[in-house]
C-alpha cells in the first residue's frame, strides 16, 4: 500500500484497548487501556507473567477472544482500518492473510485428522480460491522445505502425531507464513519446546521474518527469548503496559520498579551459585479485585516513600530518557532505578 494515508504511519496501531470478561465472580479486567504501534518489518516483544494480559492482547488483534461475556473496546488499526469495527466476514479475510498467529502448543493448533500438507494448502486456498490442486501441493511442499522439514515429499502426507514437538511448531509456522502476512503474532512459540529445539525455532522465526519482511509481535514470559530476537519490548503487569522501551534500554536501564524486580529475579547462566536470589514479594493481584491506584503498589518497595499516592491514583506514562514508564516516582529516581541493579 502506498496511498497517502499510510506512508510513514505504522502497520498496526492499537489505541486504548480494553478487554473485560464477565464471570460469576465478577468482571475480569484482563486488558486495561493498552496502546502501542508496530511498524512494518519490526519485531516487538510483549513480556509479562501469567495473568498480565499479554495473550488476551494478542488474541484481540485478530479478534480471537470468544465467549458471550467478552467486552472489547478501543481500536486495533491495521493499516488504518479498525479490526474491532469490522464485520466477521472482513475479519476472516484478514486472518491468515494479513495477520497470522503461532500458538504455544503446536499439537492443539493442528487438526489431527488432516495431513500436514492439506492443512498448509487449506491456509493458502482460503485466501486464493480456485488455485489448482497441483499448485497447492507445490506450495505446501515448498513451505515445508522452507521451514526445514527434512524429506518434505514424504512428510507432506503424514499426520501431526507423526511429528515431534519442534517439527510440529515448524509446520504451524509454515501455515502462518504461507500467505506472507504483514504481521505475525507469536504467542509463547517456544515455551512448550526443549531449549535446543527452542534455539532452532527462534532462528527459524528470525530467518523467515527477514525473508518475508513481516512484522512480528512476540509474546513471552521469558526475558531471555525477548533479548534474543526483539528490538523493542513492552512489559505488562495486571492488564497494563508498565514500561515500553528498546530491548537494550530495558535490560541496561530498566525504569519501572516491576521491570527492575523482574530482571533481578531472572536467573542467568552467569549468576553465582547459592547467591540469594532477588524476588518480588507477594503475588500478582486478582484481575477481579484490582488494588486501587497502581496495580503494582502492594508489591512495590517504593510505594511507602510516596505517602499514599500509589494506592490512590493511577500513574500516567512518563517519558524517562528513551523509555516510557507508568510510575509515580519522579523522573530522576526512575532514571537511576536501573543503576541499583548491577
Amino acid at each position, binding site marked *: 500500500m502506498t496511498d497517502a494515508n499510510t506512508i510513514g504511519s505504522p502497520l498496526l496501531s492499537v489505541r486504548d484497548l480494553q478487554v473485560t470478561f464477565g464471570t460469576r465472580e465478577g468482571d475480569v479486567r484482563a486488558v486495561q487501556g493498552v496502546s502501542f504501534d508496530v511498524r512494518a518489518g519490526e519485531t516487538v516483544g510483549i513480556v509479562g507473567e501469567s495473568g498480565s494480559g499479554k495473550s488476551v492482547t494478542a488474541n484481540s488483534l485478530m479478534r480471537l477472544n470468544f465467549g458471550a461475556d467478552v467486552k472489547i473496546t478501543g481500536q486495533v488499526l491495521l493499516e488504518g482500518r479498525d479490526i474491532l469495527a469490522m464485520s466477521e466476514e472482513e475479519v476472516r479475510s484478514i486472518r491468515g492473510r494479513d495477520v497470522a498467529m503461532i500458538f504455544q502448543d503446536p499439537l492443539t493448533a493442528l487438526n489431527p485428522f488432516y495431513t500436514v500438507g492439506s492443512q498448509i494448502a487449506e491456509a493458502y486456498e482460503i485466501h486464493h480460491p480456485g488455485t489448482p490442486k497441483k499448485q497447492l501441493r507445490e506450495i505446501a511442499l515448498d513451505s515445508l522445505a522452507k521451514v526445514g522439514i527434512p524429506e518434505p515429499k514424504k512428510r507432506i502426507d503424514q499426520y501431526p502425531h507423526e511429528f515431534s514437538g519442534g517439527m510440529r511448531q515448524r509446520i504451524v509456522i509454515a501455515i502462518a507464513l504461507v500467505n506472507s502476512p504483514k504481521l505475525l503474532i507469536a504467542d509463547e512459540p517456544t515455551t512448550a519446546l526443549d531449549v535446543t529445539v527452542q534455539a532452532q525455532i527462534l532462528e527459524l522465526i528470525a530467518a523467515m521474518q527477514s525473508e518475508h519482511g513481516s512484522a512480528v509481535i512476540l509474546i513471552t514470559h521469558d526475558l531471555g527469548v525477548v533479548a534474543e530476537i526483539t528490538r523493542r519490548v513492552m512489559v505488562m503487569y495486571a492488564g497494563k503496559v508498565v514500561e515500553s522501551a528498546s530491548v537494550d534500554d530495558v535490560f541496561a536501564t530498566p525504569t519501572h520498579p516491576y521491570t527492575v524486580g523482574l530482571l533481578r529475579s531472572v536467573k542467568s547462566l*552467569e549468576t553465582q551459585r547459592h547467591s540469594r536470589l532477588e524476588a518480588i514479594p507477594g503475588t500478582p493481584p486478582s484481575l477481579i479485585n484490582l488494588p486501587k491506584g497502581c496495580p503494582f503498589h502492594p508489591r512495590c518497595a517504593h510505594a511507602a516513600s510516596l505517602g499514599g499516592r500509589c494506592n490512590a491514583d493511577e500513574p500516567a506514562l512518563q517519558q524517562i530518557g528513551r523509555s516510557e514508564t507508568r510510575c509515580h516516582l519522579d523522573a530522576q529516581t526512575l532514571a537511576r532505578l536501573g543503576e541499583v541493579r548491577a
Partner: protein
Amino acid sequence: MTADLILEARQLRKYFPTGASKMLQRPTDVVQAVDDVSFGLRRGSTLAVVGESGCGKSTLGRLLARLIEPTAGTVILDGVDVTAARPKELLALRREIQVVFQDPYACLNPRHSIGQSIGTPIRIQGTMNKTDEKARVRELMALVGLNPEHYNRFPHEFSGGQRQRAGIARALALQPKVIVADEPVSALDVSIQSQILNLMESLQQDFGLSYVFIAHDLAVVRHIADEVAVMYLGKIVETGDTNTVYGSPRHPYTRALLSAVPEPDPKASSRRQRIVLQGDVPSPVNPPSGCRFRTRCPKAQDLCAQVEPPLVDHSGGHLVACHFPD
C-alpha cells in the same frame, strides 16, 4: 568414593514395556528410560539432574524415592538398600526421603484443606495425635511462609507459588534427610520462582537437607546445585561440580545445551556463539548404536556408531561420556 554420601544410585535401569504387541505374541518393545545410571549425593548438598524432555530425569527421581520399581540396579539411602526394602520397611523409608512435584495443583487433593494435605504423611505414619499433628502442620506452614491461619482453606484458594510452598511443607512433615524435587519451579512465574528457590536454600541450611533437583532450566540449576548430572536418552553424559561443568563443559551435548539457553541480556546474547543442534532427540525405544548422541553430534565419527563411550573421570570428579571430549 570416600565422600560422605547420603544417597547413591548404582547401575540403575528402568525399562518400560511399550506397544500392544502382546496380542501378536511378539516380544514387546521397551523404552529404556533410565539405562545404567550411577551417582552419589553428598550429605547436605544439592545434585541437579538436567536434560530435555524424555531424557529419563523424572523416571530417575521416581526410582530414587522408590515410587516405581527399578528393572535393575540399587539405590542406597544412608547405608540402607532402598531397592530391597519390603513394604513394611518402605513406610519407615518414607520418613527419610520425600518428593516435591512439578504441578502443585495436581499433587494436592482439591477436596482436602491445605492443612489436611500437609498433615497426610504424619497421619500415614501414625506417630502423632490429632492435636499434635495440627500444631505441627501450623509450624510447617509458618516455616514455608504460609499463614497458619489458612489451615482450613482449600488448594484453589491459593496461588501457584503458595501451593508449591504447601507441597514443600508436606515433604518436610516427616523431617526427611533427602528431598527429590522434580521440576519444583518450572510451573511458576519468574518472580515467584526466586521466592521458592530461596526458601529451598534456607531450608537446606536450617535442616541439613540433601536435594536431588530435577530440572530442565539450566539457569535455575546453575544457581542451586553443587553438582550437576546431564542426562541424554536415559544416560548420564557428563557430571561434576556445577562450576566446572558450566565453566568448561566437555561433552558436545552439554556444550550445545548451555549455548542454547537464551541469555536475558542482549549484549551477552550477541557476544555468545550458539551451537544449534540439528534434528530431534531419537526415540528411546530404538536408541542409536554406540553413543546415543551421535545422530545429532557435530563431532561424530565412525567410532561413535560402534562403541558406546564410557563415563570417564577426566579430572577430579568431572566425568564425561564421549570419545572426543572438548
